[in-house]
């Protein structure tokens, strides 16, 4: 029933300890890459149809076996050392900036976040989620950072192209309005305590003295 090449893919993925690129599978099996992709898709479908406790997924540019997400409660109990340590929100924001803006220097990250990025970037580097990917050709030759395949694995994404588009997160008009309002209050309030926010220009200096 199952063809030898499909079975061989199963066997190879069973001994692999990281995602295996379809190109490598194609080379080992002496098959066109398209056939490998087809076979993998067929395997994915069959595990799903049979309601297996594992699945075949494409992450970080390759295929790998993993436990089915449904069964997380059992696997968690077995794995004991929660290898999925959570990242701080600072780390996540930095990661988002690097993911969408790479290659990017530490200084650029810091200027987007408004705080120093050194510590967080080093933590992310230690975790293996970001790495130096080059040097800025300009003066100073700042180190440029990018994300790693390990991050894609952690995100469960096949490639960076699968990241949700950044445009999706650009704040809508209501947020923009709220922000504008807030900044307007900054300049108007100084004119007179408790005054209604208005489009008034910045305050004359003598009134500032009451603040």
């Amino acid at each position: 029933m199952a063809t030898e090449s499909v079975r061989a893919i199963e066997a190879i993925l069973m001994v692999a300890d990281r995602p295996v690129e379809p190109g490598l599978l194609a080379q080992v099996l002496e098959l066109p890459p398209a056939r490998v992709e087809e076979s993998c898709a067929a395997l994915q479908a069959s595990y799903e149809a049979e309601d297996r406790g594992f699945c075949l997924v494409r992450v970080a540019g390759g295929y790998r076996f993993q436990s089915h997400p449904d069964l997380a409660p059992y696997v968690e109990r077995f794995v004991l050392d929660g290898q999925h340590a959570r990242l701080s929100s600072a780390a996540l924001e930095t990661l988002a900036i690097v993911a969408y803006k790479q290659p990017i220097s530490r200084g650029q990250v810091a200027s987007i976040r408004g705080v120093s990025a050194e510590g967080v970037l080093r933590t992310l580097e230690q975790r293996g989620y970001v790495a130096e990917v080059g040097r800025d050709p300009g003066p100073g030759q700042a180190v440029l950072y990018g994300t790693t395949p390990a991050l894609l694995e952690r995100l469960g994404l096949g490639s960076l192209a699968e990241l949700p588009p950044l445009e999706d997160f650009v704040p809508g008009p209501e947020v923009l309005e709220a922000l504008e309002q807030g900044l307007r209050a900054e300049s108007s309030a100084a004119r007179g305590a408790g005054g209604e926010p208005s489009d008034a220009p910045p305050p004359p200096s003598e009134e500032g003295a009451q603040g």
Partner: protein
Amino acid sequence: MPYTVSTPVFEGPFELLLHLITREQVDLWEVSLSAIVDGYVALIDSVRADLDLETATEFLLIASVLLELKARRLLPGSDEAELDEELAIWEERDLLLARLLECKTFKDAAGALTRLMDAAGRSWPRSAGLEDRFAELAPDPLEGVSADRLRDAMRRLLAPRPQPRLNLDHVAPIRASVADAVAELAEELPRVGRISFARLTADLVERLEVIVRFLAALELCKQGRVELDQAGSFAELHLRWVGEGEPGDARAGEVVALDQVEEYVG
């Protein structure tokens, strides 16, 4: 009014501002600074036993940011606000708005990454690796690994891990010292003799620098080396060098006493 400390953790000034503006709808100018400071002192007193340094510093940061925002409006603005200056203020505001939007964009993107990680985190990869019967076949993974590379790896591991910390540069990004400004004036004024304060500070970009120059002028006046005159309220302020050293004598500045002159730094 007692100010209760409830601290979602703010990582930076943009995050704090975002929170204040979008969540709390705080009118920054309605918050009384003395109430904040009182609340802060009360907080420190009440939790002295087990002071959570992080909360305390976080709170201090919030207070400092508010202080900076308020202070910006207190600084000598111009009565006859020049168009350039006004434009600059609006430009500054637009810049701040753009940065807030960018900050919010990446905050939301980070939220999406978290959701992806949470979903992916429900699965564990197979990592058993090679069965023993194949182990012999695999090329030596130590190919090209020297003892020095082992040492380098170990040193990297032993390196102190960075602790997350708050950077307060934004609260006062400019560091200006009155002592430096006094020295500068003491060198410049003997050369020019008499000059208006506006001209003296025309090339300064930051308000803090203007303030510091002003304080430096007061300091020199106190030392009797400079005379200040102003025709009336809000009129142009002029400085005249009366200290030893003739105009043009650059060494005059070196004799100005600089002890007890304060530093204004972030």
